[in-house]
């Protein structure tokens, strides 16, 4: 009889345990950051990863699994200032809003875009702008939250997550000093962590700081359960670090990866053993590859972006620098007048049709793309827009050999000597990772010409 009751107790215990664990809710902290203006893979080569369109699809897949998702943004949506960066920031904030992001932590690049834009976005966007140690003193009213507290309530219990955000003082530079005051992060955190420790089941810090600084913060504040960090971390999968129980994670740069920290919230245990909740089940860094289909909503937003670039005629508004030694571009047809054989060969190469590759993708109004698909963009006398410079579309003769105005005036001049360092200007790792001079040279190598000497004018 005793044995029977013993067994019954064991069975009951197993049953209760299963029930308790079975009621756990999955909560996903989804993190991204340092997009640096990368809205989508530019399409220069197959296998590029990243982009808001795939990110939307990934987040949507979690949403469909009926998990609680909390997407957060670490900062640095753009990489510098200027009109194109402003448009990108608007588009990215709109994208984050549509993906149900709850907050955006301020990075130094966000601040460089300008106080007026930050003010505008903080007042009109649904996403909370976060910074525990940045004070904005511009004449434009700006809504910055020192922390964000999120509470989730089910039928019996509630749980709370506090988000803090810092910007490292080491990123402070002259371009943001006019309207920004940065408090020492540790000083700012001391007060807030103390204040939030009893209020929240979990404290998450968005640390816009170098990894080393974030590790130091983790040592000083063991109350923080998760630190989302990184500045210039290119391989976020390798950078996951633990300081005691605090996971320090990054989603890398360029919007190529998305981080997901999974928590199991046990509604029945949480009030009794709050710490059970604060330990993450797993942290995963997911590359946004072509496994994720482009979302129609983001594709539409990206089309709006290209439309804005076109409507504002941003190509023509980019400042043009003077060329050294008073040189100017003459255009492909001028070169072709004498170098017919070379011109004919060139027009059949990828360089000779590079403008069309942009047109096919609908990116021909994007100043960032046009630079490597036309001749002399960004310089006086170089490509400015299609209407005025059809002679300078494509990667023309002068893209590799330099502006040819002096050569046209005096053909006996030494002109055209070039080397592979010129290729690197466009064939960089970001856009052409497979580039090897030897193989690529074979694709564009033009025939040698023996030109007759022109009579002196």
């Amino acid at each position: 009889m005793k044995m029977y009751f013993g067994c019954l107790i064991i069975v009951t215990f197993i049953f209760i345990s299963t029930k308790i664990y079975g009621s756990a809710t999955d909560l996903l902290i989804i993190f991204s950051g340092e997009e640096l203006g990368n809205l989508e893979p530019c399409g220069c080569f197959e296998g590029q990863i990243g982009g808001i369109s795939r990110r939307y699809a990934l987040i949507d897949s979690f949403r469909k699994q009926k998990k609680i998702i909390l997407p957060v943004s670490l900062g640095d949506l753009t990489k510098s200032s200027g009109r194109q960066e402003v448009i990108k920031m608007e588009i990215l904030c709109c994208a984050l809003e549509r993906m149900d992001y709850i907050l955006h932590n301020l990075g130094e690049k966000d601040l460089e875009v300008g106080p007026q834009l930050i003010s505008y976005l903080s007042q009109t966007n649904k996403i909370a702008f976060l910074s525990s140690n940045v004070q904005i003193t511009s004449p434009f009213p700006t809504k910055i939250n020192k922390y964000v507290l999120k509470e989730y309530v089910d039928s019996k219990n509630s749980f709370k997550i506090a988000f803090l955000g810092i910007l490292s003082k080491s990123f402070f530079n002259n371009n943001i000093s006019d309207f920004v005051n940065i408090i020492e992060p540790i000083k700012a955190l001391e007060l807030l962590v103390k204040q939030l420790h009893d209020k929240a089941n979990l404290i998450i810090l968005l640390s816009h700081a170098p990894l080393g600084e974030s590790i130091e913060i983790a040592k000083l504040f063991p109350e923080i359960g998760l630190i989302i960090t990184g500045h210039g971390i290119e391989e976020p999968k390798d950078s996951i670090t633990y300081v005691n129980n605090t996971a320090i994670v990054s989603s890398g740069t360029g919007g190529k990866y998305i981080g997901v920290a999974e928590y199991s919230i046990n509604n029945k245990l949480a009030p009794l053993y709050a710490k059970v909740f604060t330990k993450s089940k797993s942290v995963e860094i997911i590359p946004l590859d072509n496994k994720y289909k482009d979302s129609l909503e983001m594709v539409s937003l990206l089309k709006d972006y290209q439309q804005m670039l076109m409507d504002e005629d941003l190509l023509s508004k980019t400042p043009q620098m003077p060329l050294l030694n008073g040189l100017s571009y003459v255009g492909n047809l001028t070169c072709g007048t004498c170098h017919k054989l070379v011109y004919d060969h060139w027009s059949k190469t990828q360089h000779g049709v590079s403008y069309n590759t942009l047109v096919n993708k609908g990116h021909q109004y994007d100043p960032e793309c046009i630079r490597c698909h036309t001749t002399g963009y960004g310089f006086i006398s170089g490509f400015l827009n299609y209407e005025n410079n059809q002679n300078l579309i494509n990667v023309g003769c002068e893209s590799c050999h330099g502006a040819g105005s002096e050569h046209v005036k005096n053909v006996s001049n030494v002109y055209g000597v070039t080397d592979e360092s010129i290729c690197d200007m466009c064939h960089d790792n970001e856009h052409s990772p497979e580039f090897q001079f030897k193989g690529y040279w074979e694709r564009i190598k033009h025939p040698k010409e023996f030109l007759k000497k022109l009579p002196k004018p």
Partner: protein
Amino acid sequence: MKEIRKYLLVLICILLISENSYYIFAADNKKIENVIDEKVEKPNLVFEEQTYDFGRIYIGESVNHGFKFKNIGVGELVINNVKSSCGCTAALVSKNKLLKDEEGQVDVKFNAGHYVGKVTKSVIVNSNDPENLKYKLIITGEVIEEVSVSPKRINFGIIRRGDSCTKSIEIKIVPELKIEVKKVESPNPYVTITQNKISEENKYSYFVTINKYDYIGKFNGIVFIYSSSNKQERIDVPFSGEVVGDLTFYPENLYFGSFKKGQDVKKTIIINFVNKEVKIEKIETEPSNINYIVSELNNTGTKKIDVNLSKDTTVGKITGSLKIYTNSVIQPVINIPINGEIKG
């Protein structure tokens, strides 16, 4: 009854130990696998060095380095591919299948381009070595400038119309290179540049002043620094800022983007009053199916204008404007173009 109890007890015990027994059996299986593994001929990828420190290079220069490796294992080593992180390229220069004691090389090229500062780039060698499926090579060093300018871009910030604003730039030269700063200039007629004499050698300082800009709005331009450096003959320092009048507004263009007919899309304009005496007198929209509501933003004096389109707006391109009339002498009318597209 006793029999049933006994069976029940046995069943429960089996259930309880079944999970643990899995691990026991699994561990045993692993031991067996390991014994078999030791007999299988495995490749073993060994590099002479894992990290290469190129020290210091100048901006625009590139570094090449060959990482030598050897297969010291018994089995054939297969290098599946070599992948590099941003900013460097890598290639396997030897064959990708290496027998025991055969040697190979991975060539890594780092091109500094315009990058300045400390750099750490990695290259992953994917192979069939079971102990090193992904071997990480590191190339590290520092890229320095012959002529370094601080700041890299000048932000004049927000300037009241008619005011002037001065910022300074510092130019540092690598002492041993004996480079000269030849000229510092800007083609912008509102910009004046004066040298600030400082006692430090190999260091130059200039004041860049934007003088009484009449134009209201954002401005930008470039300061050109000419030097005797071959690598940095001319350094371009872009500048930007904004001249404000009695009021500022954002955005300067209102984009609705493309959306479906009947969809409720709202856009917002925010108006800040620099001169508190200035008031909005009236607002006009063109065409008339553009609606707006004006409100005050959290008692700050700042005005918020929410703009939307009537639901009956026809399918097609939206081209219009919103005109804000004020009592300001210098900004009596603000014209904000409106664009978008309604799809059927």
